[in-house]
């Protein structure tokens, strides 16, 4: 009993202890289980939120691409908002959650963002970015302060590629009203922020929309052994499947010490035309005889005779410096067909336009006086990019008007000469001969002609009249003379002189004249000498007053004094010196006030020089602040483009028949007739900055291939012809037409060639051997308003809590 009494209560105590343990276990379960369930739910919700906020970024990118590469208003901040998924709003406090954008300070750096209150921003409309049943993203697209002509920038155009900051916040829309309704308990779950820079077509070393032969069994990228340089040092894109031909097979794969022919990525979207070229390929690229029109392992970089193939990275690295990773299948990149942005930039802002666009006259050059956009309303015989020294002497062209070098200093002169000539009649006293009858001994030459070859006859070309047409022209009748004194002129393309100049004064009338239509024909002539004694015809000199027909192609120029003052001489435009010119060809400047003959352009200003459209005898001048911002629009073809470019420029040739000159939808052709060099960069060297990028946009871009030009660049001792430009043949090809029958010249493109259809640079074995170096600055600092390709560089990306 004693023992029993001693243990009394022990069972109860033990049970209590067990109960406590059980209670603790239960309590921990009640604590841990919900936590685990919540964690699992959190993991799922976090996943949903992650894909919702990143989806918002992708939605914004898709929208920007759609707007920037579409038609109509391509500035997303200026689009009408009715059907758009985004609307332009004013953000009063960019630092609030979930935006949290800082700082609101402009430090003056280019490509730098700041977010003052009141900044315009694109904001997604409620419920437009929805994933699944109830997860939504709310997106804000902020502009960079330098890069678009949006209201924030007061419509000003930047040369930099557009940049954006995108903020996307994910939330669960439980009440289905499309917004994050915090009053209903909804909250932002996750926030993604990204900085983007827009790509332009200028980033490609080579771009082709489709192959010339739409059967695509003849046009290929042919790579050969032993090439010391890459064929394409930069990115290449083909909308159609590219076909690579490795004709030497194993010898190519086995070579060492040579660079890969493709230095950048090769992107493409896939077969456009039959036959299919990439569908049987391991990597999507067509390999001539490797998978396309054959199935031999020697001609492709992957191994195996049938599926499953396996990549041979060593071979890929022989083709692509980045290996197989260089091959990227992308969506099709549509070529632009709306050139409104370029046209708007060329015409410039409303305040500075010389005339209203709709009332602009044909064959004129208009320069916007506030932003110096340049427009020619007529086709050009020549568009010359000259650089002159402080005295107006050309440092680019020699006396044969050939581009000789790229100077390290000087001032840009953009010289535009119209293609259409102005014809006029002028009453003049002209020397002539009269025939009279003389007697005595004589010896005369008698010329017999035949349309067909005869013995003793020699062939000669002559201009035969085959018809006539009529034209209304101005007829000038001299009424007096004015005399002025010309000081010694500067050089320009030709050296100048001085002297006293007589300027005729005229009255004018419009008359209709008959203009002969001629063609060159061959005839056969025989010249015989006849002697005799007696009456015979002789001629003597005399003068007669009669109407003389004159033709001239008007010239205009814009001279930009960037580094210091530049003197622009009167005779810059003349092909000969003033001393050998007749007086009525002498250009008289008609500036404000008294006539001036020599202009000094102060640093920071530009001089606009225009030749008159009556007789071409006078030039008017206008001095404006600033230098051209870089877009030159030509409504018509450009028959000769050459020179040295200083300052980034885009030259585009719109169709001459464009009805609305602010919205051209088709282009005209441009012919390049000599070097297009980069200011302060020796021919052959790569640019060291992006300050002088040149873009050329045309329907077709033709490389001149005359014997004179080819012969300057077709010997080992002669330098290649260099084109430092992004050449964009948006409706046709970069090509040669009927090249001269001389040895092929050497052409080097330092920039990019972009074309709708692959064009030939060699025809019939003649033309240009070409290589494509790559100017990486064209990607960073493309020519102004160069069309976007719809792709973006992501320069910053992070995901944070809201």
């Amino acid at each position, binding site marked *: 009993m004693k023992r029993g009494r001693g243990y009394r209560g022990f069972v109860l105590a033990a*049970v209590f202890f067990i109960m406590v343990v059980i209670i603790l276990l239960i309590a921990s379960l009640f604590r841990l289980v*919900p936590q685990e369930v919540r964690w699992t739910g959190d993991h799922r919700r976090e996943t949903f939120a992650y*894909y919702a906020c990143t989806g918002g970024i992708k939605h914004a990118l898709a929208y920007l691409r*759609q707007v920037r590469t579409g038609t109509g208003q391509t500035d997303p901040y200026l689009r009408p908002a009715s059907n758009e998924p985004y609307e332009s709003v004013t953000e009063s406090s960019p630092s609030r959650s979930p935006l949290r954008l800082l700082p609101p300070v402009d430090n003056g750096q280019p490509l730098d963002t700041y977010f003052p209150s009141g900044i315009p921003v694109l904001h997604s409309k409620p419920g437009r970015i929805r994933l699944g049943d109830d997860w939504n993203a709310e997106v804000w697209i902020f502009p960079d302060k330098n890069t678009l002509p949006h209201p924030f920038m007061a419509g000003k155009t930047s040369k930099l590629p557009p940049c954006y900051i995108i903020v996307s916040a994910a939330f669960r829309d439980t009440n289905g009203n499309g917004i994050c309704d915090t009053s209903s308990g909804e909250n932002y779950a996750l926030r993604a922020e990204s900085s983007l820079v827009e790509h332009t077509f200028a980033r490609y070393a080579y771009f082709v929309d489709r192959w010339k032969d739409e059967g695509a069994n003849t046009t290929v990228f042919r790579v050969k052994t032993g090439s010391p340089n890459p064929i394409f040092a930069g990115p290449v894109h083909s909308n159609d499947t590219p076909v690579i031909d490795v004709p030497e097979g194993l010898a190519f794969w086995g070579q060492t010490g040579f660079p890969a022919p493709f230095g950048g990525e090769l992107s493409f979207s896939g077969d456009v035309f039959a036959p299919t070229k990439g569908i049987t390929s391991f990597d999507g690229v067509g390999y001539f005889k490797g998978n396309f029109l054959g199935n031999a392992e020697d001609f492709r970089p992957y191994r195996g005779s049938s599926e499953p193939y396996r990549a041979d990275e060593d071979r890929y690295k022989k083709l692509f410096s980045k290996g197989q990773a260089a091959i990227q299948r992308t*969506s099709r990149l549509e070529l632009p067909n709306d050139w409104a942005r370029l046209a708007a930039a060329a015409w410039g802002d409303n305040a500075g336009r010389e005339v209203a666009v709709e009332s602009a006259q044909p064959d004129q050059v208009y320069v916007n006086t506030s932003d110096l956009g340049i427009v020619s309303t007529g086709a050009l015989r020549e568009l010359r990019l000259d650089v002159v020294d402080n005295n107006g002497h050309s440092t680019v062209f020699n006396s044969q008007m050939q581009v000789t070098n790229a100077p390290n200093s000087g001032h840009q002169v953009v010289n535009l000469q119209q293609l259409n000539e102005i014809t006029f009649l002028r009453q003049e006293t002209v020397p002539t001969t009269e025939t009279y009858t003389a007697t005595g001994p004589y010896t005369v030459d008698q010329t017999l002609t035949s349309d067909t070859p005869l013995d003793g006859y020699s062939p000669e070309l002559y201009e035969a009249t085959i018809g006539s047409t009529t034209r209304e022209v101005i007829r000038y009748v001299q009424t007096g003379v004015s005399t002025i004194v010309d000081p010694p002129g500067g050089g320009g393309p030709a050296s100048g002189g001085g002297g006293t100049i007589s300027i005729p004064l005229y009255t004018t009338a419009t008359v209709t004249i008959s203009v002969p239509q001629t063609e060159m024909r061959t005839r056969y002539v025989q010249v015989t000498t006849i002697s005799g004694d007696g009456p015979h015809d002789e001629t003597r000199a005399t003068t007669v007053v009669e109407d003389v027909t004159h033709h001239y192609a008007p010239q205009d120029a814009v001279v930009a004094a960037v580094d210091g003052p530049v003197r622009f001489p009167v005779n810059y435009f003349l092909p000969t010196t003033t001393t050998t010119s007749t007086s009525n060809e002498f250009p008289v400047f008609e500036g404000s006030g008294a006539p001036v003959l020599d202009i000094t352009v102060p640093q920071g200003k530009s001089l606009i020089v225009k030749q008159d459209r009556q007789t071409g005898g006078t030039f008017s001048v206008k001095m404006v602040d600033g230098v051209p911002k870089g877009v030159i629009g030509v409504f018509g073809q450009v028959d000769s483009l050459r020179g040295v470019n200083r300052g980034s420029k885009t030259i585009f040739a719109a169709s001459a028949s464009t009805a609305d000159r602010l919205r051209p939808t088709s282009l005209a052709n441009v012919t390049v007739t000599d070097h297009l060099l980069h200011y302060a960069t020796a021919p052959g060297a790569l640019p060291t900055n992006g300050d002088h990028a040149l873009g050329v946009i045309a329907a077709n871009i033709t490389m001149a291939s005359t014997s004179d030009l080819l012969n300057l660049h077709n010997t080992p001792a002669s330098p290649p012809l260099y084109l430092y430009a992004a050449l964009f043949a948006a409706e046709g090809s970069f090509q040669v037409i009927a090249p001269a029958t001389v040895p092929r010249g050497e052409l080097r493109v330092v920039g990019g060639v972009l074309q709708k259809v692959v064009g030939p640079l060699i025809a019939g074995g003649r033309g240009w051997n070409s290589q494509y170096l790559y100017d990486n600055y064209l990607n960073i600092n493309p020519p102004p308003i160069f069309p976007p390709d719809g792709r973006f560089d992501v320069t910053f990306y992070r995901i944070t809590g809201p």
Partner: protein
Amino acid sequence: MVEILVAMVLLATGVIFALSAISYATKATAGTTQSTEATAYARKILELMLGSGPKSACLSAGINPAYTSGVFQPLYGPDGVVPPFQEADFTITSDPAEAAQFRESARQFEVKFWVRQYLDPGPPPSPMLGLYAVDVQLRWRDRLGVRVSSFPGLYRQE
């Protein structure tokens, strides 16, 4: 005697509470492991579908034909992982034990893909060029029955 009686009642009550708690915990946590695994697989599949390369949602501006079946398929069937994926897409090691663990785990799941052009709700509704709505659905069975989880994302083709 009373003491033992009270102790037994208490013990019985404790056991009943404990069993109830365990039952609750079992039900509450049923499938959390599989749910976590499903989320992880879905993330991996989405990463592959939303990234570039042959497993992306779109190839050359067209929906990847591997994602057009529209029916649930075993994530890991007798022939291996559902095309176009590979075992290596889901494992980070070549350790045989881990691979076996992956196979064992993956066999529990079925997967269905759904890709179509993103339709901006408007008004008026209109497809957005180059933007695709992607949905990965995973189906598995746990103690509570068949469970389906849907993971949506947006794909933008470069």
